[in-house]
C-alpha cells in the first residue's frame, strides 16, 4: 500500500516541534502516512496554501481558525482545529533601554513577576508622557495570535490601554530581535526561540514567559480545511495519532538534546541549537496536563478576546458557533484508538490556583491549575 503524503505548512517557531518530530522520527510511517513539512514565511501564506490545497494540514496560530469562522480574515477559509500543539512557548521581551527605565521606576524588579512588571511599565508610560516622549511600542506576530491576546491581557490587567497607551504592531518572528535592536520597537511577545535570541544578542531582556500570564495556555493548533478533513477522515485520525506519539517523544527528557538538534536544523528553524534550551527546559509542555487537547473553552476565550479588542462585533451565538471549529470529538476519537485516557468533557473548568480532576475517557484526569496571573484562587470561571 502506498502511503498517503500529507503536506504540512509550518512557521519557524519551537512549537512546530510535534509536527517536525512526527515527520523526522517516523511516527508518520507508523500511522501509515508520510508527512512533508514545508516552512513558510507568513501565516497568510499558510492560510492561502491550505485554502487551495497545496497544504493538507498546517501549524496554525490557535486563534486563527476562530477568526476565520468569524469572517475576520481577508480570505474566507473554513478551518477546523482537532488538536493543540502544546501549552506555553512564548514570552515577552523588552529592550535593554526599556528594562532600564522599568527598573528605575521599580527598583528591585525581577523577570517573571507580571504584577510588578506591569506596575513598572505603567510608571514608565506615565513618565514618558510627562516628558513628552513616545510611549513604548510593542509588537506581536499576528493580530489573531495568542501572543497578541496575552500581551493585551497583561497590559490591560496592569492598567494600561493597548493601542491607545501602548501601540502594538505586527512583525514576523525572525525579524523581532532586529526590530528590538534597531529601536523600531521597545518590546514584543513572540514564540521561542526568538526571545532567547534577542536576549543572547544583548538587545533584549525576557521579562515574562507565557505561563507567568496564563499558567496553562494554548499557542498553536493543528489546522485543516474543514471540507478536506471531512473528505479525509482516515488521514485526519491517522495524523492525530502520529502527533500524539510525537508529542510523547518530545516530552521525554532523554530526547531533549536530539529534539533541540532536530529543531535547530536548517530545514526546520535554522537557529543556533543553544537558543532552544530555555523553551525546551521550561517553556513548552508537549504531553501531560492534556497539553494537546483542543478545549472548546480555549477557542471561546480567543473569540471573547477578539470581541474585547474590537476585532469583531459578533454576538454570543456567532462567537459560540466560531468556538466549535475546535474539534475535541476528533481528538478523542483518535486518542481512543490508542487506548489513551483523555478529557471526556470539552470545557476546561476554571481551576483557580489548585489542581482539579476532570472526567476522562477511561478515568478521571488530573489537571494542573490554569489560572491567569490576576485571578484570585478559585475564581477562574469568568476568564473562560
Amino acid at each position: 500500500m502506498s502511503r498517503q503524503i500529507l503536506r504540512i505548512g509550518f512557521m519557524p517557531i519551537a512549537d512546530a516541534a510535534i509536527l517536525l518530530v512526527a515527520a523526522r522520527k517516523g511516527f508518520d510511517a507508523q500511522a501509515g502516512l508520510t508527512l512533508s513539512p514545508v516552512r513558510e514565511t507568513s501565516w497568510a501564506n499558510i492560510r492561502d496554501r491550505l485554502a487551495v490545497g497545496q497544504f493538507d494540514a498546517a501549524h496554525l496560530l490557535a486563534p486563527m481558525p476562530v477568526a476565520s469562522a468569524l469572517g475576520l480574515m481577508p480570505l474566507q477559509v473554513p478551518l477546523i482545529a482537532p488538536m493543540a500543539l502544546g501549552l506555553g512557548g512564548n514570552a515577552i521581551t523588552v529592550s535593554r533601554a526599556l528594562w532600564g527605565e522599568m527598573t528605575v521606576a521599580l527598583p528591585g524588579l525581577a523577570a517573571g513577576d507580571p504584577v510588578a512588571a506591569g506596575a513598572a511599565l505603567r510608571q514608565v508610560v506615565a513618565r514618558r508622557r510627562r516628558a513628552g516622549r513616545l510611549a513604548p511600542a510593542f509588537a506581536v506576530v499576528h493580530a489573531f495570535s495568542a501572543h497578541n491576546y496575552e500581551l493585551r491581557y497583561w497590559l490591560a490587567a496592569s492598567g494600561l490601554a493597548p493601542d491607545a497607551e501602548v501601540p502594538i504592531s505586527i512583525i514576523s518572528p525572525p525579524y523581532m530581535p532586529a526590530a528590538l535592536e534597531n529601536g523600531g520597537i521597545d518590546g514584543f511577545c513572540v514564540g521561542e526561540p526568538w526571545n532567547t535570541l534577542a536576549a543572547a544578542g544583548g538587545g533584549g531582556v525576557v521579562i515574562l514567559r507565557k505561563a507567568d500570564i496564563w499558567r496553562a495556555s494554548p499557542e498553536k493548533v493543528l489546522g485543516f480545511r474543514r471540507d478536506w478533513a471531512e473528505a479525509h477522515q482516515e488521514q485526519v485520525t491517522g495524523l492525530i495519532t502520529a502527533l500524539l506519539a510525537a508529542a510523547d517523544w518530545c516530552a521525554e527528557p532523554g530526547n531533549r538534546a536530539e529534539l533541540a538538534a532536530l529543531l535547530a536544523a536548517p530545514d526546520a528553524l535554522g537557529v543556533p541549537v543553544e537558543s532552544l534550551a530555555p523553551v525546551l527546559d521550561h517553556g513548552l509542555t508537549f504531553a501531560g496536563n492534556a497539553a494537546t487537547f483542543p478545549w472548546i473553552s480555549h477557542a471561546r476565550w480567543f473569540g471573547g478576546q477578539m470581541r474585547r479588542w474590537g476585532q469583531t462585533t459578533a454576538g454570543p451565538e456567532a462567537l459560540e458557533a466560531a468556538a466549535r471549529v475546535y474539534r475535541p470529538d476528533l481528538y478523542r476519537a483518535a486518542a481512543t484508538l490508542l487506548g489513551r485516557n483523555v478529557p471526556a468533557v470539552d470545557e476546561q473548568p476554571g481551576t483557580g490556583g489548585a489542581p482539579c480532576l476532570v472526567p476522562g475517557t477511561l478515568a478521571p484526569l488530573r489537571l494542573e491549575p490554569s489560572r491567569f496571573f490576576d485571578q484570585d484562587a478559585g475564581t477562574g470561571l469568568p476568564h473562560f
Partner: protein
Amino acid sequence: MTQARFNIVVIDQDPVRAALIREGLADAGHTQVSVIGEVHGLARRIEALAPDIIIIDLANPNRDLVEHLFQISRMVDKPVAMFVDRSEGGMLEAAIEAGVSAYVVDGLRRERVAGILDMAMARFKAYADLRRQLKETRDALEDRKKIDRAKAILMKSRGIDEDAAYRLIRSQAMRTGQRMGEIARMLIMAEPILRDPPEGET
C-alpha cells in the same frame, strides 16, 4: 484608453522584480507607484502612502503586517480586501503559483483593477522562469566542472581512462537516482580520505 490613476504600493525585497512590476504598471498608465524593499518601518510608510492597491511577493515576511493594516483600515474608513479569493476559480492558485498576492481597497470596481494583477502575475512568473533558467545554467556549469574533477580523481586512483571514469560516475548516478554532479561532489569530498594516509601511519 482612459485609465484610472491608482495609488499603488509594491512591497518586494527583490529590486529587479520590483522594477519589472513598476515598469509594467507604468506601461498601463499607472505612475503613482511606490516600491518598498525594506522589511523594517513598513507600517509607517504604508500609512503615509495610503495606497489603493498593494502588491506583495509571497516570500515577504511582512505579509501578515499588511493584512493587519487592512484590518485596522477596515475599522476606520477604507475596507480592504484580498484581491483574489476562492470565488474566482483558479485565480488564487495562479497567484500563489506566481508568488504574488495583492490587496485592494474595497469599492474599487474589480474589473477596473483586474489588469493590474494579471500583469503582476505574468511578470512574477516570467521573472521566476528567468531565475530558474539562470540557476539551471549555473548548476549545469558547476556540475560539469565537478564531473571533470571527479573524473580526474577516478582516473588517477583507479588507473582508468576518461571514458571509463565518466561511465563509472554515470552508472553510480543511475543506480542511486542522484545527479552525476552530486556523485561527483561526493567523490571530491571523499578524495582527501583516499589520498591522505590515516593519522599515525606516517
